[in-house]
């Protein structure tokens, strides 16, 4: 508790997040069968489902059990998705193998059976010429209570040790801790985190302590790979522009020289043009009324 200047007593937020615990305990004591029913219904609504859109069926097993791969590349967030779209997906023929359908308070997508490219989505593809390369474009928000479900639906319970996982995502530069002021940093810049069993060297410097990557699907995937001894690298782009931005998306370019992505990109200048066009189209579409 703390008293403000005007004498009102307010509850100071606790960074250990313990207010929720006390609320939960009290709710547990007061919960009626109707409350339990409502909670179960909400849990069912928030369930993560993997489906094949064309066949309109749900995947019975985890995605990587149905489509075992040697390379799994995942882009999380609009800039990482735009980068992979322009440089990797435009350099080959990719076939959609699944899509994650999920609902939460932040996700504006209601019907994931008919997705338009501008909506938030999470779609999986494999390369037609080499189906052991699987790619995921994830631009929807996965809530914290859905993250482990998402992991299970994608990776399953039998970790594949000979996979190489590459994760691309962005964070705001104000989350980066450094002894100098963050306003003096040259953004965007790339940092990496790799698992103990990582087989390839990162294409940029590693993220120094005391910096951490919390809560994103990215942290969940990298944790899974670390625990189950899978080779994985997370490339993190620190930027001061979180919306779709050419300079931020281009900051991922050094990753194209990694062993995982090298063979997948054909024509870098052409892909750069495609990325620029994607940005311009998006700018025309976006205004304060959309």
């Amino acid at each position, binding site marked *: 508790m703390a008293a403000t200047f005007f004498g009102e007593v307010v509850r100071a937020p606790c960074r250990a997040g313990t207010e929720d615990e006390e609320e*939960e305990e009290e709710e547990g004591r007061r919960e009626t069968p109707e409350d339990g029913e409502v909670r179960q219904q909400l849990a069912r609504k928030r369930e993560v489902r993997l489906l094949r859109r064309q066949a309109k069926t749900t995947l019975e097993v985890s995605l990587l059990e149905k489509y075992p791969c040697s390379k799994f590349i995942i882009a999380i967030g609009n800039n990482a998705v735009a980068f992979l779209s322009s440089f990797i997906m435009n350099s080959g023929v990719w076939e959609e193998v699944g899509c994650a359908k999920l609902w939460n308070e932040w996700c504006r997508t209601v019907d994931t059976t008919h997705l338009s490219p501008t909506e938030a989505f999470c779609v999986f593809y494999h390369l037609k010429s080499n189906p052991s390369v699987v790619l995921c474009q994830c631009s929807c928000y996965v809530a914290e209570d859905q993250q482990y479900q998402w992991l299970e639906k994608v990776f399953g319970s039998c970790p594949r040790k000979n996979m190489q996982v590459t994760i691309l995502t962005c964070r705001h530069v104000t989350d980066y801790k450094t002894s100098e002021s963050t306003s003096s940093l040259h953004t965007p810049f790339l940092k990496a985190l790799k698992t103990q069993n990582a087989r390839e060297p990162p294409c940029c410097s590693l993220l120094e302590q005391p910096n951490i990557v919390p809560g994103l699907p990215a942290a969940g995937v990298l944790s899974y790979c670390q625990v189950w001894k899978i080779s994985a690298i997370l490339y993190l782009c620190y930027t001061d522009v979180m919306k779709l931005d050419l300079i931020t998306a281009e900051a991922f370019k050094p990753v194209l020289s990694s062993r995982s992505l090298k063979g997948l990109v054909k024509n870098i200048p052409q892909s750069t043009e495609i990325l620029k066009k994607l940005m311009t189209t998006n700018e025309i579409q976006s205004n304060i009324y959309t």
Partner: protein
Amino acid sequence: MFVPCGDSVPDLAGCTLLMPAVSVGNVGQLAIDLIISTLNMYKIGYFYTDCLVPMVGNNPYATAEENSTELSINAEVYASPSKKLVALQLRSIFIKYKSKSFCEKLLFWVKSSNCAKVVVLSSSHSYHRNDLQLRSTPFRYLLTPSMQKSVQNKIQSLNWEEMEKSPCIPEIDDSEFCVRIPGGGITKTLYDEGCSKEIPMVILLKFVSEGDNIPDALGLVEYLNEWLQIIKPCCDDPSASALPWKMPSSWRLLFGSGLPPALF
């Protein structure tokens, strides 16, 4: 579930498990950091769970360039075999409604590993203290029934104060009395489960407020050290202020990055 770093599951029989509760000021977690860092404990495995928010970062206890690139996740287990000590460190908060499930899974692992005892380091909101508590030491302990016989004498010789009971429902005058630990996170749940599952468990906590909680963490480890004697004083002078607790390298920039010079 516990997943070992190596190929075989380490033998934890007879060891003391130290663990934090994610509580006000994160004091328990800071205290465990101090213990792992000072004793140079090494990682033996992960407590892989869907109950905690995921988190990754490089080695928080790095002492040199070579060991600074080991990845750490949100729940890891460290060991010091010579002292028969095992430490579980938790680095993120619980996902909503998952804290009870975590306690059950954790205590199942504790029982199946045959740990000798569990010590939970925690904290409680200092503004909830009653008048008597305000005038006494800020440290408190709690023992589960299966722990009472073995350590009661030692605890009494240390003149420690047991956590007092308070009204279960403060608004009602003739409410029953029970142990309440506001701001203690899962401490109360762990204690209740420890009692009902007959687990030898000790809770050590300090009354704190949010802020710079490093002195609170140092206080809590010294309180623990009075009993367990994890590290011995380096000289015989009892008034020597500091035992050599080593702060981990990740404790830099706890309150954010450097300030922009233009601010001044």
